[in-house]
């Protein structure tokens, strides 16, 4: 209860929460909220490149489709990619980090070296190589992002598990005869859950940004999918006249990524008192 009240007092967290909630609502209620729901797949060439106005709130694109409606349906795609890719990355990264952090042998060294190699290339570059090889499709974007982002969770969980390994309560559990699996799942994971949650929230923002870049490069879901990054790429031919074309999807990306970042920062402040913002220790 106390932490809930603290959450509501944190302005950053509240802003993030509102933005993320709005994104989810936009995705869930895309059909009733949109003014031209049919424009996701069918177009109206007579209405192409109309500026924002009463009929088309955010203008229309090169096919005469309503940009506002396409943005709403694009929110579904964005959430799908972010949630699934991040979940995969967590599901791969967390167990690897746990095992590598819990044991101290050649195998845990090897696991960490492997994750170091993945971290040795800028993530988006590796994702481009994978997505390019597999071809433009939404599942390939998800695959490329999960394969490149899991080491972040492995690193985090590894470091936290290592530092917990010598704590008395872990030692006590081992002394009581708990199996390694039991210790990891019932004792280590609950203690590091807040760090994982914070990292995952911020990771969602990073994933959305990376997915948008892949979409911009033409490696995302193929048209006519209302992918935000691809919408920005399409708009380039029609600049400078159709200024609204690139603006709206870019603002959408900006707000959503900002929402997840604020939410993550806020959650860190609330959940992890050790690293609360701004040195609060004496001095």
């Amino acid at each position: 209860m106390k932490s809930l009240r603290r959450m509501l007092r944190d302005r950053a967290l509240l802003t993030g929460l509102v933005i993320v909630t709005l994104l989810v609502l936009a995705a869930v209620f895309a059909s009733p909220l949109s003014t031209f729901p049919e424009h996701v797949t069918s177009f109206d060439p007579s209405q192409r490149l109309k500026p924002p106005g009463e009929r088309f709130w955010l203008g229309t694109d090169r096919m005469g489709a309503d940009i506002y409606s396409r943005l709403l349906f694009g929110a579904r795609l964005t959430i799908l990619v972010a949630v699934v890719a991040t979940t995969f990355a967590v599901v791969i990264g967390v167990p690897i980090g746990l095992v590598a952090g819990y044991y101290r042998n050649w195998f845990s060294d090897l696991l960490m070296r492997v994750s170091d190699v993945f971290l040795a290339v800028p993530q988006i570059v590796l994702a481009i190589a994978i997505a390019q090889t597999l071809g433009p499709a939404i599942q390939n974007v998800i695959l490329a992002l999960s394969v490149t982002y899991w080491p972040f969770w492995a690193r985090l969980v590894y470091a936290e598990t290592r530092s917990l390994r010598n704590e008395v309560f872990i030692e006590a559990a081992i002394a009581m005869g708990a199996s390694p699996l039991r210790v990891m799942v019932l004792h280590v994971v609950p203690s590091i859950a807040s760090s994982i949650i914070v990292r995952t929230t911020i990771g969602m923002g990073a994933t959305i940004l990376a997915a948008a870049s892949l979409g911009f490069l033409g490696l995302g879901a193929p048209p006519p999918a209302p992918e935000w990054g691809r919408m920005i790429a399409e708009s380039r031919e029609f600049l400078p006249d159709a200024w609204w074309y690139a603006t709206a999807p870019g603002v959408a990306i900006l707000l959503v990524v900002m929402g997840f970042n604020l939410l993550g920062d806020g959650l860190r402040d609330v959940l992890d008192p050790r690293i609360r913002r701004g040195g609060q220790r004496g001095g």
Partner: protein
Amino acid sequence: MRLLALAARRCLWMPPTLLGLTLIVFSISHIIPSDPARVLAGENAPIEQVEALRRKFGLDLPLPQQFFRYVTDVVSGNMGISLYTQRPVADDLLERLPATFELAIYAMILAVLLGLPLGVVSALRRNSLLDHAVRVVTISGLAMAAFWLAILLQLLFSMKLNLTPVQGRIDGWGPDPITGFYTLDAVLRGDWEMLGSSLRYLALPVMPLAIPAMATIVRFTRAGVLNVMSSNFVFYQNAMGLPRRVVIWKYILRSALIGTLTQIGLVFGNLLAGAVVVEAVFSWPGLGTYAYNSILQSDYNAIMGFTLFTGTVFICVNLLVDIAQAVLDPRGR
């Protein structure tokens, strides 16, 4: 002496990391469902021709052997032929490296020059108006898609206001390279007109790379300064009666800067990655545009070469950063 040992140990880790990177790239290029020999020979080629190509490129060998061939090729600088430019990928990449480095270095300089002071000041004046303003800028800077910012800047400054060129790197043909960095070449030649021209072309592409980098640096510097300010050794120095000015300049800044330095490797990696989309927007003739064109042409020898090359550059930068950090921070020795 221990510094030397540290540097040696870090250097020793490089070959295995590079080998691992090569293995990843090799695996990626071998997961494609289609048969590369069949693709090379063409749709209707007779089976003997496909088999001949398979033998020629060693595609009939077991995978470990193919990997060994690949590694020996890469080590000797052979990354295959680009299907699009019909030239060796390694030559293409080396030729475009200076353009990207020039862009990335200017972006980095701008990010550090703006980010460090802003981070320090917003930490020293925590919760002031300036601190809040800086926070708004960093939060937006980190959430912005670099290609979108690039397009908006191009729309405003090049297309609407006509202040800067829309795309390219210099007026007319580039000069004969000395270093390949046009601004540096211009200074070396004393050709001020050329310097002005290349700076005008640089101005816009640098921004979308510098702004997210600056945001990262501000964040880490601010957190670092705050962290040091509350540490016991600063408490001790304050208690000893050292003037605040001395404590800030001599102790707080030094420790905080070392913390920020570790982020520079990360920031540089982000710059290289951001260069792909930003260069594509401005047709900047560097590695990014090369990668972008290779994606459009499905030229994947070139893409794998780009990945490997960028990874290698990134690993080297991180190595230098680690060593620099060890030199600067006596506690890390």
